[in-house]
């Protein structure tokens, strides 16, 4: 028998939709849009296997305004993912020590983001300047 009535902090069921957690939820859901992009590629693979006629239909859809809008949304989400991914990186990796002093988190974020910009730019440059 105990009169103990410990304080239980109230936690609304929709806490994930409220500040300050909303930012976190948006970040997590931006990760889900990456699968939507992968699904677009997967549908192309299915069309390719079905033959030239199916491939042309898929290609036509890819050039349609609906596809442009979808890819614009996916692009924004992907940029958000890239930005937040390297913001979390220094918080999830073991502390990096160089020359006896820890590397600042901001520097790790800056380096990661720069490497990503170089990688994506290199990919686009390769496609643009490769003679097809």
């Amino acid at each position, binding site marked *: 028998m105990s009169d103990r009535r410990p304080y239980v902090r109230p936690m609304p069921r929709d806490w*994930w939709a409220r500040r300050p957690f909303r930012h976190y939820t948006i970040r*997590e859901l931006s990760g889900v849009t990456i699968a939507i992009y992968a699904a677009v590629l997967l549908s192309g693979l299915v069309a390719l296997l079905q033959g030239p006629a199916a491939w042309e239909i898929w290609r036509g859809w890819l050039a349609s305004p609906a596809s442009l809008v979808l890819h614009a949304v996916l692009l924004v989400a*992907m940029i958000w*993912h890239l930005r937040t*991914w390297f913001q979390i990186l220094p918080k999830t990796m073991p502390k990096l020590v160089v020359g006896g002093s820890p590397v600042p988190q901001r520097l790790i974020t800056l380096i990661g983001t720069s490497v990503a910009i170089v990688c994506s730019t290199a990919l*686009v440059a390769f496609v643009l300047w490769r003679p097809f």
Partner: protein
Amino acid sequence: MPHAPEKRSNAPIFWLLFGAGGTLSALFGVGLILVTGFLAPQGIGVAPEALSYENALAFTQNWLGKAVIWAVISLFFWHAAERLYLTLKDMHVFSDTGRRLLTYGVAALVTAVTAGLLLAIGF
């Protein structure tokens, strides 16, 4: 009393796939979307025949092309799976088994289907 064998967590495997997909998409995702969503289909800076059936087939029949396609599609799905799984857990939707099937289950299925499609397309 005999010691029961320690139950190992399978979480690290999912975390590894999540991290691999997150890093791959962070590094190349923006470039990929620009190329496959805008430049190639609109013919901006890229010849219209770049996306021809023959070219797409040649890329997909190449072992390196296959590896790239398989890695991008499956790892992107594994990344989304982990994030969606944890978010659904936060939102208290579905049972834990249901959440696992919807996220890890779909990612595993996509990984297998993509491998099957790539093999069916041949070399």
